[in-house]
């Protein structure tokens, strides 16, 4: 029953931004479904194989912005073959042929070919924004096509992609008429760019707010760019090496000081620590600071820098900061919400690393902390309990102890109690990554307390199937579960196969599930794709049901088996 004309409802729906809410709106009744689908502009697809481009287009003809994610998360850590899939080309092709006026495309962990980029650039007259995160498969040629053909391009944001950019002319391909750039991020490119073209581009982009340079932009260019773009809000410095007493350094200092709007700073891929004082004038405004690619910064220079950043809300740093440095963070950055501490030497001796001390200090000093990614040498239950008490607001808590299965070094106990404290205290916890020595007990706690948990990552943990069962039975909102090297077998996998339809995906590698178990899941649940990834020599591949499966990835889908799987992937 509809008491309002469609336009009114549309207007109301326009103010509903969240995908979840819009999905709920569409379920109310047929007319709401209809109105919602015509008015939907942004769609998020967490697994590109869960739906087809054709069905997307059919349902949302007014689509303007599409976000797609491809490979499973563990692909980041080399656990997924490079040719597994996640190709964007079919999507772009279908969208191009449909006449949809795509304006924004955001991709994560997908394979993007130069051909796709070219097709993209030529098919959508109003295309404005391209964001690629952890993608691969393209070169500077693809970028050149985007630069040349997207006349109203506002955003070109390349984050941590593997790009073959041996030919650096793509920047010069921006036509003189392109003055609409708001965001340009090419920090992940390894090749040179045409510096003159870069300067001219920045000069004619009065709306430019975000600029992230790569390592090969020299200092004098940086200085010129800053002079031309004092309105910048987000700056990524590639190379920051200069002699503090030189003329160039003074000019740079002056240019930096003019940029009073910068609130986000990153980069420093090359840095001479003694030059950091030139940055101090803008530190007081910073809300985001990413020094996780700057191993050259540590010790006093680093802590001095941080002491100037009183408004920091998000800090990404290397573990060279040490526990003491984290103490400085704790006493300085009272507004801190997100902290990520990455390992500077993941495979090394770990002399520079952080321990549970640093985390406790930050938890005590930064009560607003709600998001954590922490690579450390060790962790204790006592520390985790303290952290849980200090910071009950965690939404994301990801702890990685560099030595897997390391217990609490003080008590020699597993870390069950510590993580248990976290899930009990942090009622809004949505994402959790575990590490260290863990038994089934921690999963009991998670199943009992982690009611809002949506994503769980487990490695080298648990004693038996019970662990996995606690989680599957307890966490009602679970969407993504990824497990490696745990003793979970068929009885856990098969206990409740219907559960997997309520989730986006399940990854299990180096566990105890067998081929037979996976086949059973596939038989019982036609709405799931059950993929077995087998990278060994094909002739050895044994079809025995009792054989353990090395890697299994299953996900719900509305469109059945995908057709683009490589030989190493077997869809049951």
């Amino acid at each position: 029953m509809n008491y309002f004309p469609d336009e009114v409802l549309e207007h109301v729906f326009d103010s509903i931004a969240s995908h979840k809410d819009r999905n709920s709106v569409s379920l109310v009744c047929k007319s709401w479904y209809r109105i919602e689908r015509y008015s939907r502009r942004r769609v998020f697809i967490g697994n590109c194989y869960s739906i087809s481009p054709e069905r997307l287009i059919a349902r949302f003809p007014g689509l303007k912005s599409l976000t797609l994610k491809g490979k499973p998360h563990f692909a980041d850590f080399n656990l997924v073959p490079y040719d597994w899939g996640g190709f964007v080309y079919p999507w772009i092709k279908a969208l191009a042929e449909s006449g949809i006026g795509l304006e924004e495309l955001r991709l994560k962990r997908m394979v993007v070919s130069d051909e796709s980029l070219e097709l993209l650039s030529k098919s959508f007259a109003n295309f404005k924004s391209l964001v690629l995160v952890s993608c691969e498969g393209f070169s500077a040629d693809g970028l050149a096509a985007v630069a040349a053909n997207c006349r109203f391009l506002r955003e070109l944001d390349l984050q941590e992609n593997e790009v073959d950019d041996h030919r650096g002319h793509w920047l010069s391909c921006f036509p003189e008429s392109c003055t609409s750039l708001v965001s340009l991020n090419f920090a992940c490119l390894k090749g040179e760019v045409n510096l003159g073209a870069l300067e001219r581009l920045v000069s004619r982009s009065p709306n430019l707010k975000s600029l992230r340079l790569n390592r090969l932009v020299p200092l004098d260019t940086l200085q010129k760019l800053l002079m031309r773009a004092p309105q910048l809000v987000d700056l990524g410095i590639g190379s920051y090496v200069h002699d503090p007493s030189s003329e160039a350094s003074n000019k740079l200092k002056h240019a930096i000081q003019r940029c009073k709007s910068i609130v986000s700073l990153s980069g420093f891929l090359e840095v001479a620590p003694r030059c950091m004082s030139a940055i101090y004038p803008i530190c007081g405004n910073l809300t985001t600071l990413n020094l996780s690619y700057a191993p050259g910064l540590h010790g006093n220079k680093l802590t001095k820098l941080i002491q100037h950043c009183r408004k920091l809300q998000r800090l990404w740093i290397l573990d060279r900061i040490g526990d003491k440095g984290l103490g400085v963070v704790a006493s300085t950055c009272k507004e801190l919400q997100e902290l990520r501490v990455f390992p500077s030497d993941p495979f090394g001796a770990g002399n520079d690393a952080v321990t549970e001390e640093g985390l406790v200090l930050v938890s005590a000093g930064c009560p607003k902390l709600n998001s954590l990614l922490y690579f450390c040498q060790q962790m204790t239950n006592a520390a985790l309990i303290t952290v849980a008490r200090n910071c009950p607001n965690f939404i994301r808590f990801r702890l990685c102890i560099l030595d897997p299965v390391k217990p609490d070094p003080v008590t020699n106990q597993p870390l069950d109690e510590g993580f248990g404290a976290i899930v009990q205290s942090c009622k809004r916890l949505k994402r959790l990554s575990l590490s260290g020595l863990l038994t089934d007990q921690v999963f009991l706690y998670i199943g009992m307390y982690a009611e809002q948990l949506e994503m769980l990552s487990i490695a080298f943990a648990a004693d038996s199937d019970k662990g996995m069962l606690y989680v599957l039975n307890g966490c009602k909102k679970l969407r993504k579960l990824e497990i490696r090297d745990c003793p979970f077998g068929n009885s856990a996998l098969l206990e409740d196969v219907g559960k997997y339809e309520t989730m986006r995906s399940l990854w299990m590698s180096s566990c105890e599930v067998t081929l037979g178990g996976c086949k059973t899941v596939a038989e019982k649940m036609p709405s799931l794709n059950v993929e077995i990834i087998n990278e060994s020599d094909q002739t050895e591949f044994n079809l025995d049901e009792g054989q353990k499966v090395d890697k299994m990835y299953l996900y719900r889908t509305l469109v059945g088996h995908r057709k683009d799987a490589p030989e190493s992937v077997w869809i049951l």
Partner: protein
Amino acid sequence: MSPPLLGVEEEGQSSVSSPAVDCIPQNGLGIKEWNYLGLSDFSSVDSSGVACLSEDNKNNLNLKATELRLGLPGSQSPERKTELCLLNSGKLDEKALFPLLPSEDGICLPLQKSVVTGNKRGFSDTIDGFSEVKGTVYSEKNWMFHGAGLDSQSPQPLSHAKYSVAQASVKKDGPANAIQEQPCATNGTNLNRTGVFNNSSSAPAAKAQVVGWPPVRSFRTKTLATSSKNNDEVDGKQGPAALFVKVSMDGAPYLRKVDLRMYSTYRELSSALEKMFRCFTLGQCGAHATPGKEISSESKLKDLLHGSEYVVTYEDKDGDWMLVGDVPWEMFTETCKRLKIMKSTDAIGLAPRAMDKSEKDC
């Protein structure tokens, strides 16, 4: 692809699943006593800590728990230690086939170490005074689980199913090689699940790596590797090309200068200083020494420098005299203004760990 040890592992699973089953539900105690936000009482710690003990052991511990002791499990009499060793070995049986935990011996050793410091600490003390605990406990970086900071790579007791010997040998090259090696490595490790102990101890001294661990994006690892390399070059190029500091030694007639940029570790600096001050110490220059004498004088000097007679100190930017070796090398080079080799007797009061220092490699 399948480990031929499939049968064995399943056996292992079934034989121990019952104790595991018994442990968790019987621990009704554990569920009631969750009290993470208030400070826990010790009984909850004890019982949850020993959740998997059999009935007998549990009773014994409870008796002990009623005594007025504030130690953590394992921090008491030898008797208790044995119980916990037993506990852990019981646990380990089920784990022996999922090579996720170190050997029996491995677990007991650190327990002994924690006895010393854990003895008088209650759980609440641990929470509040963890930093203190760390100072005492963690300085002994000899945890069996943790090979950090030790140059001598003890045969990694951590045996994981996914050791990749191929990767261990290309450690320096990092993940770039890992990507290429991975297909065969995975294969290899699959077949060698329980043979991993042998693999790891025969692998080169480089710490054996587990595929995909730690979970750091390969992009990040590669970029950091390049950045580190470049920064080393950068430090060498920019600024003063060399960092010469004066080195004085008690009793020597004149000073020397060393370029700190020539070294990247304390050990290198230390051996350079040895060489430099050899003639001073022995009151004779190289020309006068006979070969036989030189050998013994070298070792004598080593003994002098590393033994109790001399310590190396430095003056930092604030003008304070500090013992060399405490801070990371990079921090040291940035703050060191001059060096001084002084007699240990003169160095008392500089740092309480002067004796420990002389035992460690500087």
